[in-house]
């Protein structure tokens, strides 16, 4: 559903062209004043998401993934948050928009799926009431019509006998069913932008796969833009068109998913890839953990925020890593692959030092390149 132009407060940008990105985030900075000081949760973050495309955001907990996405929905309490930058949804500015206007956007053109379904659903209302309520806020329909819509949605997300389960309370649903009910709630108004914040982290692989299928089907049907926040690189690999790696509140690598996961150029991304075993790799290979702990956002490290944990600091001349924040700029791999790191020859280091350690079975010994044929499935079958 696009936003009605007549509702735009004065001074807003003209409605975007359909080819323009549906979501544009520019220099977003989010700070929280607290007793201990100012938490710099998100700093100078920029990205875009096109209609029908999926952006994957990865990073360890506390890296600012949720805070940045909640800003898109205007979910931060203005009294306790300092927000700057620009967030445009279908051309319309969100930062500074009135709560009234945000409520119109939220759950209508933009919807969010939260990690924990149980906290997102109200325990005292039936599943059906909660879904139809979301529909009635944005549509002038009778209760019966809204309920019909709710049954339809539950059915779509694969709840068997939706008509009979509609009057159940959340605790009567299993974990996977609750997650699906929440997705039904998020999708009831056919949102143009869907933000899924770790939608499957707490779920079994089989349920996770069902939910991911569902997101993909719905995206295809409505050509929606999707942001999927996860710490599972496998999910990103299979679902996201573009990927952004966050560290300490900033984007540290950003580009096409295939680029980022097969030719990562930033040591933190290397660390993430080396930390996870996968179901097909060498079982006896040792995992390469990232040493140390995530940075403090009250007192972020100087220079590159990753420098206290980075094994490659010595390869950068002078004291640059400790003193100077690297810009997020294209490296050798072209305009569509941005990285925030001082290393001059990341491609070489990755091929010669990192890859042999994290995925020795995947390298062609002569070219030093990843061998795609070793990945298990024929692309035609996908």
């Amino acid at each position, binding site marked *: 559903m696009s936003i009605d132009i007549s509702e735009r407060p004065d001074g807003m940008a003209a409605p975007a062209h359909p080819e323009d990105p549906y979501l544009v985030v520019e220099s977003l900075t989010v700070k929280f004043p607290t007793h201990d000081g100012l938490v710099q949760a998100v700093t100078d973050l920029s990205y875009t998401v096109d209609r029908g495309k999926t952006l994957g955001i990865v990073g*360890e907990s506390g890296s600012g993934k949720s805070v940045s996405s909640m800003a898109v929905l205007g979910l931060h309490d203005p009294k306790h948050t300092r927000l700057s930058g620009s967030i445009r949804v279908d051309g319309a500015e969100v930062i500074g928009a009135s709560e009234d206007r945000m409520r119109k956007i939220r759950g209508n053109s933009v919807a969010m799926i939260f990690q924990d379904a149980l906290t997102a659903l109200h325990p005292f209302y039936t599943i059906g009431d909660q879904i139809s309520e979301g529909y009635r806020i944005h549509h002038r329909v009778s209760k019966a019509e809204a309920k019909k819509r709710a049954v339809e949605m539950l059915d779509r997300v694969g709840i068997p006998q939706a008509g009979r389960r509609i009057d159940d309370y959340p605790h009567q649903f299993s974990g996977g069913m609750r997650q699906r009910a929440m997705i039904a709630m998020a999708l009831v108004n056919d949102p143009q932008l869907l933000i899924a914040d770790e939608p499957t982290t707490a779920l079994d692989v089989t349920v996770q796969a069902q939910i991911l299928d569902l997101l993909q089907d719905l995206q295809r049907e409505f050509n929606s833009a999707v942001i999927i926040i996860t710490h599972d690189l496998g999910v990103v690999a299979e679902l996201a068109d573009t990927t952004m790696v966050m560290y300490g509140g900033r984007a540290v690598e950003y580009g096409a998913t295939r680029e980022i996961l097969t030719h990562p150029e930033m040591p933190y991304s290397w660390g993430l890839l080396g*930390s996870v075993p996968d*179901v097909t790799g060498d*079982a006896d290979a040792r995992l390469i953990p990232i040493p140390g702990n995530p940075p403090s956002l009250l007192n972020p490290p100087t220079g590159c925020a990753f420098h206290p944990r980075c094994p490659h600091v010595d390869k950068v001349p002078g004291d640059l890593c400790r003193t100077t924040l690297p810009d997020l700029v294209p490296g050798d791999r072209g305009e569509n692959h941005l990285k925030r790191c001082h290393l001059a020859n990341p491609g070489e280091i990755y091929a010669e030092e990192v890859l042999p350690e994290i995925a020795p079975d995947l390298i062609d010994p002569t070219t030093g390149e990843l061998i795609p044929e070793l*990945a298990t*499935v024929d692309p035609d079958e996908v």
Partner: protein
Amino acid sequence: MSIVTNSGIERAPEDSGASVGNDTLLEVRDLKKYFPVKSGGVIRRTVAHVQAVDGVSFTLGKGKSLGLVGESGCGKTTTGRLITRLYDPTSGEINFEGHDIGPLTRRQMMPIRSEIQMIFQDPYSSLNPRHTVGTIVGTPLRVHNMVPEKKTLARVQELLEVVGLNPEHYNRYPSEFSGGQRQRIGIARALALQPKLLVADEPVSALDVSIQAQVVNLLRDVQDEFGIAFLFIAHDLAIVRHFCPEVAVMYLGKIVEIGDRETIYEHPHHPYTQALLSAAPDVKQAAIGGRRERIRLEGDVPSPINPPSGCRFRTRCWMAQEICAKQEPPLLQIGKTHKVACHFAGEMHEAPQRPVTTGLLGVDDQGNPSNGTPVAEIHDQPGYADTWFDLKTQSVTSST
């Protein structure tokens, strides 16, 4: 096999554990745990039972690792808690170093308790927030009189060092540590008693990926150094594959497939194992793009209060036939170190046309008793026999 009741101990005759070799540490035989479901009201009657664990058998060698995987609620944690005797078994045997610890009382368990330790899933709730790390790690040492009181602190510091924490931090509280560090404290506590067996229940699931790798490597190191055997419970198939040379797949309270890592991951013969493996997203897919070919499992795991008849997986199985509803498939050994419980056991796209279990069960292809005689109940045996049923030749084979 002897029958174990809760009132008296009837030790199994020593020769009953024929398969218990010298290097077997733990042998679990037909282990069951049924939780009563009570009615509401003043008089709370037992109206049903949750069959959380229903006849599980396996062995674990000294210093070895067995992985336990399966969907939420399939009975992994309950199995772990039975073995550590946090729960009393409903029936079955838990032979630890040749003795059934299932029927032991709290007091009788005391000397053995130090040898079987557990690491919990949640590093936040499993540590007492009001106790210092020194107290948390030192308490088991004191309770079991492991070291003279004067030497407790030195031992605690030694343990902290082993798990990669600063030994000077013994005076700090759990809240002062990160999730990964808290999990290390839990590991130090478990190591304090120099256990022979560690039951690790989702030891890294609550941690960030970058920290998971630190903890997994630590567990590997302590296993190598101290020769500890692991029962490693996790729903992350990649982590289990990485840690365990042997893997058991559970579904609704039963083991449906068990075998060496290579067989389970490369040649799974049970449809559920195949579905689980195909569902795990793979980073390498990035090089290809798009989703991997997957088996779409429909529906949820049925209730363990009233599991489906016959094969418990049949309500979600794309290969289910008449026999699957009528007969429970026995856990059949089909390789040197490979057992599977499926009437149509076979590799993906190569499942047999006719059930492979009919001879064993004495039934026809539809699962009806072939000459009117009732089907004998077949109990799973722990470990592997020297002979097995070869699926290709449809006959009993041995390695020699």
